[in-house]
Each structure stands twice: as C-alpha cells, then as structure tokens.
C-alpha cells in the first residue's frame, strides 16, 4: 500500500527541519517505523542522557495516535519497565492535528516534568512522592548508567 502523503510530508519535515534534541529516522524497509532519540532535557535528572525510542505509525494514522515506546531503560513515574509511556495525547487526547514532531516534544516535556500523581510505574511514583530527592538521584544514576550517548 502506498504511503499516505501526510506521512511522507511529516518525514520530510522531520529530516529537513529537525527539532533540536530530537531525531526520528524511518526504517528503509518500513517507512512507518521510526528510530527515535530524545536528549534528556536540561535541568532534569535526565540531562546528558540520550534516550532511544521506537515509534510506529499504525495503518489508520493520523486518525489513531502513533505507538511509541522507550527502548532505553529510564527511571520515571510515567514510564514503565517495558518503556510504555503514560501520556494523555498518546491515548484519549490524541488529535489528528497533532503529529510526530509535537508528540516527541510532549515526551521530552514529560521527562522535564514527571507527574507522580498519574503513575504508570507505581513503585517509581511511590518513591517519587515519598522522597523526591532520592528518586531524582536514582533517575540521574539510571541516566548515567543506561542512557550514555
């Protein structure tokens, strides 16, 4: 099946005008599958880390959101052990006017502003609430350990 114009245009724009700190490169054999990297935002425990993600555009994209998962291990209350992300715009708040670029920016923003009140990784969220400084330290260590560029 031919690739919809929208995906071609989005890909071109991602290549030609990349977002600082974010890259998304489609696989040659499957143009709906992207290798994504996101730099940890500055002044966050993820600063200095380079996080790898995989992104897949389902058949009915953009009517349904892209499927995204962290491949790099990350200590974050809204990202679970399998790398799944709890983010409203990836689920019920998706809108076809959003795009790969905006979604990746949202994920980067989520790294800068963890939300332990809406957790996906319960244990992490618990730690985050009980002893935020210790949790941030753990996140920093994990970043050092797993997300080295």
């Amino acid at each position, binding site marked *: *099946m*031919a690739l*919809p*114009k*929208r995906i071609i*245009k*989005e890909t071109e724009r991602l290549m030609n005008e990349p977002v600082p700190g974010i890259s998304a490169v489609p696989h040659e054999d499957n143009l709906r599958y992207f290798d994504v990297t996101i730099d940890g935002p500055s002044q966050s425990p993820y600063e200095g880390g380079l996080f790898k993600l995989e992104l897949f555009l*389902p*058949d*009915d994209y*953009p*009517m*349904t959101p892209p499927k995204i998962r962290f491949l790099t291990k990350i200590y974050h209350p809204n990202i679970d052990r399998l790398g799944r992300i709890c983010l409203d715009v990836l689920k019920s708040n998706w*809108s*076809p*006017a959003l795009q790969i670029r905006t979604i990746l920016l949202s994920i980067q923003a989520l790294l800068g502003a963890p939300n332990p009140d809406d957790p996906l990784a319960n244990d992490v969220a618990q730690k985050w609430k009980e002893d935020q400084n210790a949790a941030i330290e753990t996140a920093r260590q994990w970043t050092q350990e797993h997300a080295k560029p």
Partner: protein
Amino acid sequence: MNQYRQKYSLAQSGELAHRKSIPPSKLMVGHDFSQEFKDQPALDPHGDARQLVRLVQCRSCSKPLSAPVTLPCGHTTCRACLAPTRPRDNISYPNTPDRQYGITCKICDEEYPTVECSADVTLTKVMEVVKQTIARVQDTPEAPVCVLEEIPVSEDDVHDSNDEKELTSYQGHRKEFRGGRLHATFQMASDGELRYNSDVQYRASPSDAQIHAHLDAELFNGLREAAHSELDCLVCYNMMLDPTTLPCGHTFCRHCLVRVMDHSSICPICRAGIHIPPIAIQNYPSNGRLVALLKSLSPEHVQARVEALESEEDNSEGALSTPLFVCTLSLPNTPTFLHIFEPRYRLMMRRCMEGNRRFGMVMYNRSSAPQGDLGPTSFLQYGTMLEIINLELLPDGRSFVETRGVSRFRIKAYGQLDGYYVGNVERVDDVPIIEEEQLERQEVLEAQAWADAYVLENPQDPRTPENFPGLLSTDELFRRCIGFVEQMSQRSAPWLSSRIVNVYGPPPDNHKTFPFWFASVLPIAEEEKYRLLATTRVRERLLIVYSWIKRIEGQRWPSGNSCSIL
C-alpha cells in the same frame, strides 16, 4: 434506543432540514464533488482580474474581507459586517450563554447562535497573506497607469442598496492606479470604491496592457504561492478538498472531517465539541469562499487532489479487494445482524455502501492455529461474504446493519487498509452434482465393505447406521436431520422458538442449504459450526450436522430427562 431514534427523527422533520439522513449513495463523499471540479477553467489574472478580486471582497461592505467569519451556512462576511446579535426567543435548551443570542446571515437569512459564528481561521490567514503580498507591490511608480471604471451590474443591484442617491454617484465612477489590473482592482476595493456586484471596465493603451498582463501574472503567482501553505488541511496535509468549516472556525477537507468523526466529536485543532451528528457532516455546507478560492488559485491542484482521492479509493479494489470484518461466524443464506461502533468498521461500512454493499465476515482465530498459506493469522481463513440488506445509521455515527450470507470464501492473501483487514478471496463452492453422486456411491459402498469386514472380526458388535453414519445415503442423512428438527420442535426446544424461526425461517427443504440453517439455530460452539464453511460437498456437510445430532442425542437419552436444556 428506539425512543432515542424516534426523538431524533422528530428533530429531523423540524427545523434541521439540512441535517436529514442521507441516502446510502451519499455515504461516501467526494464523488459528486469531483464532478463539479472536472474541467474547471483557471481564472486568468489579467482578463478575470475583477472576478479574482471579488473572491476576497465582502458582500456586505465590498471591501476585502477583514477578520472574516464563516457562518454554518457557508457564507462569509467581515466580523464587523455581521448582523447585530439578537436574543433567540423561545429556545430553552441547551441553555448556555453562548446560545442565547443569535446572528442572522445577511445572505441566506438563517439564524445561528453566536457560538457558531467564529472567526474563519483559514480565511483570516489567507487574507493576511493576500494583503501582505499585494502591499509588497503597492508602489510601482514605473508601472503604466491603469484606468478603471466601475459599471454597476444591473438595476436590481441599485435597488438592493437603500441609498440610491449615493449610488448615482457611482455611475461612471473612475479611478487611476499605477500597476496591473489585479493590483488596481484590489486597491479600488480596499478604498471602498468598488461594489461587490459591480463590474469594471479597464482602459490602457495596448502596449501598457501588455505590461499590465505581465504584472498581473507575476502578482497572481505570488498570491498563489503565499496562500498555498495556508490552504493545506491539517489532517491529511494535502490541499483542502471540499473545505468544510466547523462552527469553531477551523476548516478541514470534508472527507477528513468525516473520518475524524468516526473517532471523536471534537475539533482536531481546538477540541471544541462538534455538535453536528456525524451523518450530517456529509450534507454540511462547504465553505463557499474557500471552495471558490481554491478553484481559481490552483485548479490543477484541486484536480490532482480529486484524482488522487479517486485512485486511493480505486486501489482498494485491486487484488485485496474484499474488506474483512473479523468478528463472528456467519453462514450462507442466513442473516447476520451487526452493531457497528468501531471507527475502522464505520469507514468500512461507508465504503461498502458506496461500492457493491458486500464484505467478508471471518471469525477470530482464537487458538492461533496456522491458516493454510496465511500462517497463524488473527482470523480464520474461511469466511462468508455478506451483503448489506439494510443499514440504519444512528445520529452519533454508529449503525445497525442487517446482512445476509451470500457465499463462502477462502482468503488467499490479506493486507490492511486504514485499520481494517482486506483480502484477496476465492469463492468456495460445492463440487458439481455429478461428482457429488459418484462420491456418494463410492463412499457408501466403501463404508458397507468396511462394516462387513468389521463384523466378521467383531460379530458381537455389528456396524449399523446408528453407530456408523457413513452407511447412510445422503438423502437418508437429510431425512434424519429433518426428523430431529421436527422432534425437537414438538418438544418446544428453545432454539426452535417462534422468535428464532421468524429470523432464520423454517428449516429449508434443501439438502444443500439445510446444514447452514441448522448450524445458525443450533446452540453449539462456533468453532464446530465453522467446519461447514470449508466443505465442498452436500454429503460432507450433512455428515457433520448428523454427528452433532448424534452427540446431542447421546447426551440427552441416558438422562431421559425431558427438562434437558436443548
């Protein structure tokens, strides 16, 4: 549910005339529309300068649109030119502040609540770039002078406006500008000296006119390029096709909007609720100004877009032409009732209604068993082609569909289209009668021979038709099955209640189709019934059905309980 539907139909017969339900042929948009665009001639920037400027002139104040508002009727005026808001009397529901006052369209006299009269975001941006582009060529002192004379079009126009005195002064009204016709005409409109309906007569020497034509072409190209990026639909990233503006002021291709509303009823950009039933979007007025602008700015783009959409729809009729509904077991000659709510299947139903009204029904592959050459697919490889007999579209976009099994098929290849499966299927039919006969003869004789041999070895345990159905003739199998149904019917088996017979009909007196009927009424596992779909012989099917009967009787007889569930 029924109550709700009734209420809805009452509303339809009333003031919501434009929201009437639509005939199936209209379910898929784009086609009537594409006809309209075939062979649309491009407007010539020099010769049709007057017409081009009219596209961006307000009908009310005759100036280029400023802060345009497009009402739900598709008509546009400047915000300042909207009729004054008036209280909407005798409306008590919904009682929100933004619906208590209304604005009447000056063009069609329809009244809309203020909340539905929002700034037209796309047109506002287009007007911005148009004004910027024209401002850039504002002063071209070296350009030859173009003389314009306003010609009021007809007496009607004169009477339309109340102040005739003022109008007489318009007669023979002349202006001079340095620059091409397009620029000069726009300028005249900006100065408020060119009425919307008026024509313009241009005067320039032939050599000057040539220079003007060149300037016009240049400006027109500049406008085209500048406006182009503003005219893309934010859902499909293509140039808008049949632009449709929501009450919140955001515009999308109509067919994009229809697909968006399969999934949610909020505007993709501002998330304002769309209080238009999904089925009414098809008949919702287009944004007249944008349609006209697109037609004149880039007719070739619009044309390409129409063709691309058509070929997109056609592609689905290639090898993988059968839409596959993965849901339940359906059988030939019997009805299946569906409630469609999933977005992908709403789209599939629309396409089916537009096409041959047929789709394939296949069961889930619960055990993940490999399906022939297909491998372990999520659905089973044999299915039933269903024909839509009746489709009742609910106002919220769901639908109730009544279908009837037409034929059986096997899936040879499959793929996905917009979220649902499509397949290349091959019809499964019974072998010719002559072969059926030969095989019956051969099988019965073989069974007899085997039974004879068996009894020689086991004299105490002879093989009879009771414990070895292979001995029965095809007709005898059928008679026994019918007999079982009659017997069960006399015992008032719940699966033969009048309600069920009303839906599925009485048992057909037809060896070929009886097993399908029987399977559709008999309450046993669907996986067991599925075996019928792959059969290619009547006898094969009757043997399967008879084996069910034997099993049921086996369960029932020992207990001797007349209160058995079957």
